[in-house]
């Protein structure tokens, strides 16, 4: 039977572009955030004070040759995905991927900033960037990854809100299992900035984002009132069929052993009452396995955390029987379409280091094995769950690789 392993992890986020560095900083509970610029034209309409900034991907000169064309012609979300893919390839020790390597990139909104700029220019001056179509279409994100890696397998963008990149990894995992290819470069990307931070206000209307004056967030706590927004980030992974990885002497971080994906079919914002659709998905994914670590969706919203906590209690039982639970969003911000892949990377590093990073919290909800401080513990099996708007649910199971 074919098996699928993670051999490359390429994050680009506010905590760094090296997954070991990102994991160390998560374990140190570092939160990189900036104040919303007071010169933002619509500043007074936005109640949030803080957000996690998009990392500077343009000035370090890394992969300058390979990214030269993308730097000029790609939207920020596409550029971030392409750079993350190159980092993941480096991390996997790969000069060149198999020609039929599959590429799937999850993302959330359109390339908003670029699309708005061109629309306004055309409206006010009847001028636009002549390449606005390839500049702004979402499929260009996957195209740029294939161009910079020079590979010719199937490539696509998945758009499933916050579940996008967990699903992209899951679909690639299943395709490798099925023998369609031996390698995939998969993950997600997000860039939601524009000069007014329009999407930030959009999330405020939905009562999802934190307006705390100091930028703190309180996942799975009584004080929860929303997430810290991220301007953007990306994370791409290299995953491979086990024999393929062994043959080339690759370092194996962890094995992917399951993927679940469901739709609530209920409401465009709210979760299915009680979270029963998510519960069914997770029960099927987990089976009778003992899960040591659960990287939650954990948005710190009223909509999500109470329901997700109930699902955890129903599946695993009381606190002492639950896996260690955390969420990476208080430190990375909610990176939307990139969040799932970043969190799968965190799970792989948790297994590698036998460590679960700590969390921000207030008064933690009752009977929940939440991890306020970084904990050294045996982590052999982890589950990363993503529960997106519109009822898009997905989860991936990751285990310690054993020959």
């Amino acid at each position: 039977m074919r098996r699928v392993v993670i051999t490359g992890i390429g994050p680009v986020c506010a905590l760094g572009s090296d997954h070991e560095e990102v994991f160390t900083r998560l374990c140190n509970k570092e939160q990189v955030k900036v104040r919303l610029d007071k010169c933002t034209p619509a500043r007074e309409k936005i109640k949030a004070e803080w957000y996690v900034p998009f990392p500077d991907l343009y000035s370090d000169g890394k992969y300058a040759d390979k990214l030269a064309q993308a730097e000029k012609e790609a939207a920020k979300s596409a550029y971030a995905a392409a750079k993350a893919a190159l980092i993941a390839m480096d991390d996997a020790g790969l000069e060149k991927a198999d020609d039929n390597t599959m590429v799937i990139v999850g993302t959330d909104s359109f390339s908003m900033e670029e699309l708005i700029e061109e629309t306004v220019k055309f409206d006010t001056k009847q001028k636009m960037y002549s390449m606005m179509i390839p500049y702004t279409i979402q499929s260009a994100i996957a195209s740029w990854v294939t161009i910079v890696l020079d590979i010719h397998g199937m490539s696509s963008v998945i758009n499933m809100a916050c579940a996008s990149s967990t699903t992209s990894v899951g679909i690639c995992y299943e395709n490798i299992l099925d023998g369609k290819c031996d390698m995939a470069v998969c993950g997600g990307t997000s860039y939601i900035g524009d000069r007014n931070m329009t999407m930030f206000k959009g999330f405020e209307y939905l009562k999802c984002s934190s307006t705390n004056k100091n930028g703190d967030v309180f996942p799975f706590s009584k004080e929860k009132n929303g997430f810290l927004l991220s301007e953007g980030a990306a994370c791409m992974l290299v995953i491979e069929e086990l024999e393929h990885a062994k043959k080339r002497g690759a370092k194996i971080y962890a094995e992917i052993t399951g993927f679940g994906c469901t739709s609530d079919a209920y409401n465009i914002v709210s979760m299915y009452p009680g979270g029963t659709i998510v519960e069914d998905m997770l029960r099927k994914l987990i089976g009778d396995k003992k899960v040591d670590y659960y990287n939650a969706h954990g948005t710190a919203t009223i909509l999500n955390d109470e329901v997700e906590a109930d699902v955890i209690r129903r599946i695993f039982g009381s606190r002492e029987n639950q896996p260690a639970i955390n969420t990476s969003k208080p430190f990375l911000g909610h990176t939307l379409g990139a969040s799932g892949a970043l969190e799968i990377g965190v799970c792989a590093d948790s297994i590698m280091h036998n460590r679960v990073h700590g969390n921000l919290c207030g008064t933690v909800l009752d009977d929940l094995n939440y991890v306020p401080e970084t904990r050294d513990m045996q982590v052999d099996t982890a589950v990363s769950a993503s529960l997106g708007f519109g009822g898009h649910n997905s989860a991936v199971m990751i285990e310690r690789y054993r020959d």
Partner: protein
Amino acid sequence: MKADKEFIRESVADIIGCEVSDIKDDTNFVKELEVNSIQMLEIVAAVEDEYDIEVKASDLSKYDTIDKIVSALEEM
């Protein structure tokens, strides 16, 4: 804060798609007009925009009648 009751009533009617006359001061939007969770968010957003306030997610139920909205605004 002074609240414009008729402006609020018109905004709510516009969001729900009903006649202004269907919304009495004490008509409960959720129980009597079958307003769903998305429409409640829209109603609160309209009030937030007009009065430049922030309503917490945990306080949405305090905005489910015209009377309650007016009281909440007047207490600010």
